[in-house]
């Protein structure tokens, strides 16, 4: 049996104001509330609200056989409460169906796993409590920011009570000849590991509306046919997992409604469920279904789901990114020593990985996805605003 595992990432950062040196020490708000409200309302209307309604209908129609998972960051949930409470309510309605799993991650969508173990554990615990409070379930599956993963991270997650599964990218250089359709174990064989099937995930997330793509337009028939073919080589009755992981904003935001993405999603579950050998499960349900010896995989170096390289280069490659993030974690230590909860909250809002993503210079000339997602004119500007924010933070200590 082949089970489709859907996981959608829901995240909104607190974008910074265009901070000038002269703003430092004036007690000014570091964040662009107006822009953040505007983005949240726009994305809620184009994506979160219509997609949640659609998926809720599909779950009800399919009577428990259509199952999905979300990872929603703390910064997104906070901003739902501020700017779009109806969106949070619609996620709660999904939680109540019993067919939706909510994953655990760092509250601030941060890179703390790479820089500050204690901070990482703190943010994971904060996020876990938030999910319990908002959705009434304790996360059992962990997904780190941007699917960043390495062996060391599985050790940390294993220490936290309740996590049995971690999801990450199905990176070729790790998998080599292996298939991402199996459930694996981490290097020390104590945690269940699911790997994103990036080709089929990206067909929906990135290529769906691309008219230059030979497979355009992507129909449900075509896509389910591909899925059917994945199982051809599988003779026994082993349970396989097709991990379709993507940003939730794919629906209606990255792929506009006019592209037909909602129609695709409306008809996809029933087409899958017509076939007796296909089904849907959530990430935490996979471990019990893995009816075979799970091979363990070692990730000595960090991987992620970003860009061609699928490494950390989107966030911490150039000098600006490195100086910014190293300075941040140094300051965070001092903020914690000071013991002012409001200041710590502000500092943590600066830990969100997006701030470093905006400083990426990899493909800036080509105007690629980094530029699409950045609220600033250039990586240099993003860096200037961020470093000014850190200078302000330090004056507040």
């Amino acid at each position, binding site marked *: 049996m082949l089970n489709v595992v859907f996981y959608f990432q829901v995240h909104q950062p607190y974008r910074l104001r265009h901070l000038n040196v002269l703003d430092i020490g004036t007690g000014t708000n570091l964040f662009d509330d107006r822009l953040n409200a505007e983005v949240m309302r726009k994305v809620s209307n184009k994506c979160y609200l219509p997609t949640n309604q659609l998926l809720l209908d599909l779950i009800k129609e399919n009577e428990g056989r259509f199952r999905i998972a979300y990872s929603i960051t703390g910064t997104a949930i906070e901003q739902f409460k501020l700017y779009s409470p109806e969106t949070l309510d619609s996620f709660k309605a999904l939680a109540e169906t019993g067919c939706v799993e909510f994953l655990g991650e760092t509250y601030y969508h941060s890179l703390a796993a790479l820089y500050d173990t204690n901070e990482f554990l703190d943010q994971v615990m904060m996020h876990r409590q938030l999910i319990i409070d908002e959705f009434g379930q304790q996360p059992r599956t962990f997904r780190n920011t941007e699917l960043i993963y390495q062996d060391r991270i599985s050790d940390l997650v294993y220490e936290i009570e309740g996590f049995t599964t971690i999801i990450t990218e199905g990176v070729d250089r790790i998998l080599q000849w292996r298939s991402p359709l199996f459930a694996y174990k981490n290097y020390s064989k104590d945690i269940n590991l699911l790997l994103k099937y990036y080709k089929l995930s990206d067909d929906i997330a990135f290529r769906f509306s691309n008219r230059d793509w030979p497979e355009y337009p992507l129909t449900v028939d075509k896509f389910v046919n591909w899925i059917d073919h994945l199982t051809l080589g599988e003779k026994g009755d082993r349970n396989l997992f097709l991990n379709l992981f993507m940003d939730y904003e794919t629906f209606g935001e990255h792929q506009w409604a006019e592209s037909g993405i909602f129609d695709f999603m409306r008809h996809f579950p029933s087409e899958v469920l017509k076939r007796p050998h296909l089904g849907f499960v959530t990430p935490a349900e996979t471990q019990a279904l893995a009816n075979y010896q799970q091979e363990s995989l070692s990730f000595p170096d960090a991987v992620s789901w970003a860009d061609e390289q699928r490494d950390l280069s989107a966030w911490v490659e150039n000098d600006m990114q*490195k100086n910014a993030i190293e300075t941040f974690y140094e300051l965070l230590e001092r903020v914690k020593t000071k013991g002012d909860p409001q200041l710590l909250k502000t500092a943590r809002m600066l830990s969100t990985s997006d701030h470093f993503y905006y400083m990426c210079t990899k493909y800036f000339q080509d105007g690629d996805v980094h530029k699409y997602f950045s609220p600033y004119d250039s990586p240099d500007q993003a860096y200037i605003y961020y470093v000014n924010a850190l200078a302000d933070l330090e004056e507040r200590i």
Partner: protein
Amino acid sequence: MKILMFTWEFPPLISGGLGMACYGMVKALLALGIKIDLVLPTREMVYFPLREEEDVDKMPAVFMDPVHHSEFLTKSFQDITERLEYIGITPTPETYFQLSDMRHFISKVKSEYLINEHVSQEEHDIWDDMTTHLIGEEDLIKKVQEYTQRAERFARELDYNLIHVHDWLTYPSGMLARKISGKPLISHIHATEFDRAGGPGDERIHKIEHAGMTYSDRVIAVSQYTAQMIMSRYRIDTGKIRIVHNAFSIEENQVHTKKRIFKGPTVLFLGRITLQKGPDYYLDVAERVLKVHPEARFIMAGTGDMARKLLRRSAQLKLKNRFLFTGFLNRKQVESILRAADIYVLPSVSEPFGISPLEAMAFGITSIISKQSGVAEVVNHAFKIDYWDVDLMADTINHLIENPQICKKMGIDGMKEVNRIHWNEAAEKIRMIYSQVLSEFLKSNP
């Protein structure tokens, strides 16, 4: 005494020290009773008849073709800025001038003004130097061509005793006016191409600078440093050169109270982020100081073609959040940043004068200025260090950080000193030069 003055910058049309210097100088000359007709790179064919001291702020304007611009005389403007915008004073003047227009103009000038038997071979050579090098498709060169062509009418139709021009952009106009009117020409050197480029620079501009200075009756240099430069690099006759240091006028009753941004000692670079100003040396100094005093903050205020490179390098050197870039600052923001600084650094590679340190000193900021600057000749209460001696600059800053009372005293002494520097002394020297040139002129043209 009436002067026909050509300059490229004058507030609010300003991009650097030239405009500030012209403003202070003209205001002080008007106070001495000297009348000035000022010509700027405006879009419309206008000049500014300045008669009273207050005129530098009112900027009365006269069209050369008033009939065609009767609207201007009757139209009511909200304020000076709006009126000046109407006559085309914009930060970036536009030009519709074609290269063929310039060729035509040059041949016309030659056939009209350079034909009689009194024109020497030497004079022909100077003109050839100017005209053959004022050629190019760059916006700036085209604007200078347009400005020069217009100068002909001002030179013919206005009434004046002397011509005074500021920097190479206006030298061709000055030469033309001198040729047409036969009146003496004074060229004022605020910066040469060597200073601006921080290296050899543009050959065409050297030739125009050389032609303009050679054709002048007097050359005024803003410092000994600049006088040395025009003697050694341009071989200008030493007897014609006069030195008049720039000054700095503080608005009366202005009190600059400190308003800190950072708790730690704050060091400031303020100026264009270009090779000439030595911003890369400033970064090197910052790196050295921050190793000893991580509590210090270095601000780099301004914009320029090296900003991106230095930003990246400051990150590479891991200067954390201790080296900060402001980007462009307006006048009010400049004052705010000055109020927040303790130590000012001017590491210019070549600075003919440099008004910015005087302004910093007026705010009571202890200043470290490059020895390769004119301003170093006029102040005593500042540290003067070779721009390349980053170790000494770093040691000096460390010393000031470790001895705040010395830093404070130096700042106060510097403030007192700057308060004694006035444009009226500079204007008095310029008036003497005017008089001398005029009396020589009258003697030789009885």
